[in-house]
């Protein structure tokens, strides 16, 4: 089975930024994303609530390395200072590589 390498970018952040965050992702070249509801704790304290007051969401994007890095630095520059957010990157193998952007990394 032929697989190719792509980058999985995982972001955990406060739910309040959802719509803005998604807009940015797509502008930066993500062809899709997956979101799950989450709660948790970090530098900005415990986040666990309904009515979006302080819920978290966990967002995943599979894309080529270049796009992943572009998104990551964008988030660091525009979100880290003011919003509860972490992100991490990992290499994954995918089947239909085109779907996730040509790897220009």
């Amino acid at each position, binding site marked *: 089975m032929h697989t190719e390498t792509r980058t999985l970018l995982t972001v955990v952040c406060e739910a309040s*930024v959802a719509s803005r965050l998604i807009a940015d992702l797509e502008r930066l070249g993500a062809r899709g994303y997956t979101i799950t509801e989450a709660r948790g704790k970090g530098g900005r*304290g*415990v986040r666990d609530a*309904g009515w979006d*007051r302080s819920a978290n969401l966990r967002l995943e994007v599979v894309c080529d390395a270049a796009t992943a890095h572009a998104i990551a630095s964008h988030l660091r520059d525009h979100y880290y200072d003011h919003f509860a957010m972490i992100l991490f990157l990992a290499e994954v193998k995918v089947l239909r590589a085109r779907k996730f952007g040509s790897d220009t990394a």
Partner: protein
Amino acid sequence: MSALDPVVLFFVLGVAAGLMRSDLRLPSAVYEFVTMVLLLAIGLKGGVELSRQPLAPLVPQMLAVVAMGLLLPLLAYPVLHHAGKLARADAASIAAHYGSVSVGTYAVVAAYLSAQGVAFEEYMPVFVVLLEVPAIVVGILLARGWNAGHRWGELGREIFLGKGVVLLAGGLLIGWVAGADGVQPIGALFFDLFKGILALFLLEMGLIAVSQLGDLRRCGLFLGGFAIGFPLLAALIGGTLGWVLGLSPGGTVVLATLAASASYIAVPAAMRMAVPQANPSLSLAAALGVTFPFNILIGIPLYHAAVRLLYPDGA
């Protein structure tokens, strides 16, 4: 006696369970459901009332209430920024919360007065809607000044189309259009169940209040004092305005309570977008951890007692 009003007892139960670190929680979907029903119900009630009378005579009252919504944050800001040494953004954000209103607190004062058999102007929800927004605008201006950087269009959407405002205003419009008879078939859900659903809401609010105590400790004494002191001042202003506007004693208590309450639905979301550098846990800790409990346990009966002195006969 308020403390014995069972809906308030549910709040006390929530606080007790939270303090004893019980694992009790309302699932967030249920909390949203309960909140949505309350917002729609309050809107519907107000709308039905509007459909009963001409709008014109209310316009002056409405303008006065909006003016109060603009004034309160302007009073709160300097206290927070200069006396409290809070950063500009934080002071502005907290000021916006206290200039706006808490729908949950309105629900409790309405339940309280009806339990006491005290009448009030049923169109009060209109004031709740009107008070949601002005303080947000003032807060944003206080934080960012009149610079061009505002994407007011997008902000406007954040402010007016947050679910809280949409449900409250939407319920109001539906009630207005449908009128008392039209709304009657859905009354079993939105009116008959109102207090039971409010009880569940308050149970969760009690748990939430306790969960804020940690943050609150970090915020220090000043904010804790502000979260009780400012509502008292605001209640005085709101009560006076109600008296000037010639509201009924009950209506005066409601307006005082609205002034004294701090928003935790519309404002946090809007401020998060408009003034992200403001630390949201400060305003939530104050509004949910101190002001909300204070108002429903002590404030409301207190404002009622004060108004009773103004109107020995009546209330």
